[in-house]
């Protein structure tokens, strides 16, 4: 917990004792009629930057001079109601285009697919979206619920028996993807799929004395990072997954069916179940599937 020794000094940076105090946040003139809208942002970064003339309100909603002169006659046009996604985003990008995380917005899939800032962000409404989830011990909003509004099947995959702890609040979509745009395909934050996986799973980086080339080239050859019905996020189970590449004879090419499992098809206990099929199949022996530092054939066969 040594990092937490930094917490108090960090907080001390916030105390304006040594400098000008924070000024009283201004109540914009807009709040006279639009109290609810003002209240919804008063405590936010946008609200704190506002002034009595409602400059922050006008930055998004447009010039209100005429409206202030005669509110009933000169009604404001809601720029977000019928605008195109690009027009909506342009409002936010007026101030935020220089933000670091929006550097690749134009290069990303979202900007090309009519996704507007307001599809994910709403500075006025902070209520949590209604989502269907199992019981979790976190009370933080789950990012996947927002992304899942469009990426429905991906959100559904997080419910599968084998999954990253996304709904549990320990992994977010934005841990791997940059929703604001990226140069890497699939808007991954890192430059390749493998580098993305290694950013958390550093034990898989290697390099190993004996490697497994499909592993080194692309983790998603075998795994589905969003969720799977098979353990370890595997697309399929051993032995089937392994046999789809390893077909050169000997025991890899034997068929392994329920005649080799613990219980025979007739319901009787099998007195000699096949160790190449039961439990984890091929991985019972070839456990070092991502690469091995074992010497000689022990390592080459990934059995140590």
């Amino acid at each position, binding site marked *: 917990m040594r990092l937490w020794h930094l917490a108090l000094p960090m907080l001390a940076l916030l105390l304006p004792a040594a400098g000008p105090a924070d000024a009283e946040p201004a109540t914009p003139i807009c709040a006279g009629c639009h109290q609810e809208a003002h209240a919804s942002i008063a405590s936010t970064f946008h609200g704190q930057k506002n002034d009595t003339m409602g400059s922050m309100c006008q930055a998004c909603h447009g010039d209100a001079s005429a409206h202030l002169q005669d509110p009933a006659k000169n009604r404001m046009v809601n720029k977000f109601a019928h605008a195109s996604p690009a027009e909506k985003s342009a409002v936010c990008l007026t101030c935020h285009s*220089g933000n670091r995380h929006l550097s690749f917005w134009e290069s990303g899939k979202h900007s090309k697919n009519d996704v507007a800032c307001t599809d994910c962000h709403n500075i006025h409404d902070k209520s949590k979206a209604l989502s269907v989830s199992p*019981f979790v*011990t976190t009370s933080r909003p789950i990012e996947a619920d927002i992304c899942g509004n469009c990426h429905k099947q991906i959100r559904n995959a997080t419910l599968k028996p084998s999954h990253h*702890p996304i709904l549990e609040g320990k992994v977010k979509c934005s841990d791997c993807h940059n929703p604001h745009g990226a140069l890497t395909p699939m808007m991954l934050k890192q430059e390749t799929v493998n580098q993305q996986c290694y950013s958390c799973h550093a034990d898989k980086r290697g390099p190993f004395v004996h490697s497994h080339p499909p592993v080194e080239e692309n983790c998603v050859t075998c795994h589905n990072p969003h969720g799977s019905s098979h353990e370890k996020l595997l697309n399929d189970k051993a032995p089937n997954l392994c046999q789809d590449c390893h077909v050169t004879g000997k025991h890899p090419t034997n068929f392994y069916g329920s005649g080799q499992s613990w219980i025979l098809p007739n319901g009787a206990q099998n007195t000699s179940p096949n160790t190449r099929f039961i439990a984890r199949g091929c991985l019972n022996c070839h456990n070092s599937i991502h690469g091995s530092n074992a*010497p000689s054939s022990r390592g080459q066969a990934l059995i*140590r």
Partner: protein
Amino acid sequence: MNAKPLSLLVASLFAAPAAMAEEQPADAFRVFGVVGVGGIATDDNAADASKLNEYRDLSNGVLTLVDVKGRGTRHWFDLFGENLGRDDQYVNLRGGSYEAYKFRLYSDALKHNFLFNGITPYNGAGTDTQRTTFPRLDTSAWNPLDIGYKRRDDGVMFEWQKAAPWYARVEANQVTWSGSKPGSASQGTSPGNGFVELSFPVEYKTRNAIVEAGYNTRAMRFDLSWTASKFDNDHDRLTWTNGYFGNGIDTTYLPADNRYQRLMGNAVFRDLPMSTTFAARFTKDELKSAFTVGTSVLDGTAGQITSTLPNMSVFDGKVKNETFSASASSTPMKALDTKVYFNYRKRDDESSNIVFDAPDTTERVPFSYRKNNYGFDAYYRFNRANRAGFGYDYLDTKREGRDDFDRTKDKRLFLEWKNTSLDELAARLKYTRLERDANFLHANDGITTSDPAYLNRFVTAFDLSNVNQDQWKLTLDYTPIERLDLGLEGISKVNRYKENTLGRLKEERQEVYLNASYSLHSGVRFTVFGDVEEIKYDSQHRIIGNNALGGAFDPDSAANASNYNWSGNIKDRNWAAGIAFDWPAMAKLTLKASAIYYKTDGMVDLSLQQGVPSSVVAPAPIPAWDDSKRTSITIKGVYTFSKTLSFTGGYAYEKYDYSDSQFNGYQNVVAGSSNQNSYLDGVYARPQYRANIVFGLVNYHF
């Protein structure tokens, strides 16, 4: 986490405004939020509750919540903490001064559980020294075993913005893993020699640091960053008793320490002609791992040791990567958006060329590649309601280190149509076609069908073999009446490995997702969803029992009792349905509920080549292939006593059923002759559970 720093933290938050009030008559820095304390109790009937607690800490105990914010016109902070002192603790402090700096401190913990109430014949399970004396067929004398590790990520970030448009940023974090994870090892060098399940020690530490500096304006951005990452493993080897090899001490090699460094540069230029934004990135990285190689192996049923005769004592692993990406997004004419892009990736494996001369000669094969990828996307808006898209992507990969394929060319094209002609309805249809051409290095192996090398012509790994893929995706969003939203997403993807004879021949995936959400004026909200998915894999394989028979190595030859093909057809079906509602039942009471049912159903059909004589025992299909059913029901209420006091409480029910042919009828020992017994510890075998969870928090708002 030590509670003392946290209590000081919270105290200082409350002290700061008071201190300011003494100095300034109008204290505008407001601190507000909520703190809560309560508890959770769980009752379950699981033989192995690790699946129930896979990533959650549901143990009986105290729950806590801290969500405090500070806001001023110049400074701000957010402090969030939950489950303090529990395995899934999370604390996050963010703050800063607008347009001057911002920072973040966080600590995020989880426990990944794999096995509760397992058993093992080993003493020292979970450590790097696991010993016993085999045979140990009496499992009643085995030792108890739990497998799981704690993972904690502690990090800090600081970004200096006061010199805008220049900025500087540092990030650092440390991820520690402590505990054990499931593992196993064969006992001999033949699959008939049995295997043992082991619990591998996990004492990892990964330290990462990133330093970045850049220049950032609306029109232009460039930055340079350096990343360093160090992975340390306290145990690079695990030694264990091998019962087949005369109770000798065998060694499994665990991930070695590694060091990674990366230099990255980015540049973005906006407002170029034709509304073009040009973006580019380069990276150059190096990964190193030095490891003292094993000089002997356990190699005989009397516990004999055989030297491995490596040509070097230390393996110097080194892999270098370079990437370059560029894209230009433009609006060359009204209603037309385009993007052209290029990606280059190079991997060079410069690790030691290590050779072992005993017990057999093995040589490390380095794996390197070059990938050139380029393409374009174009979207044309015919009118406000209709937009068409078209794109082409080409990926050329050259590889060294794979003996089957050295080059693949992937060509991908997509067509898309989006329609929003009705205010209430948005539809999108997308078709993607992939064609891969692979240069197969064994297409002409072998001279005759009796030559073992002849079989190589038909061994084509699916990850790189020729393939045609057709993918359709349809999305519909419909709002027929106010506050009612309907959604549909359908996908169909088919991969045809057109020239494969052995291995994967075809895979298909179809999925349909439907959802509906409705909200009433009273504030009641409903949402319901349903999903059906089917995934299929078809493959073909060959059994060669008699090399001497003609056509033994030709899958196209007629079947006989010794040499024949067999097919596998795997089908995974998944169903999901769920409903949630949110109901402000009374002025002070809000009720929320969620129910989910998720079912997975897998099966494997196995069949023999036509013409196989009846003397050959046909394979039995596998009826249960990761079959599961999960029912989750959660009901929660929030009662607001006053502006400062509320109570959140609820109940959750979960039931998980599991059936799989690899685990049904599970036993901890598979007896074999001549010490070829296999010993299993129970991991993944009994994940079924039923649980009742009650929880509550009293929250103070200020």
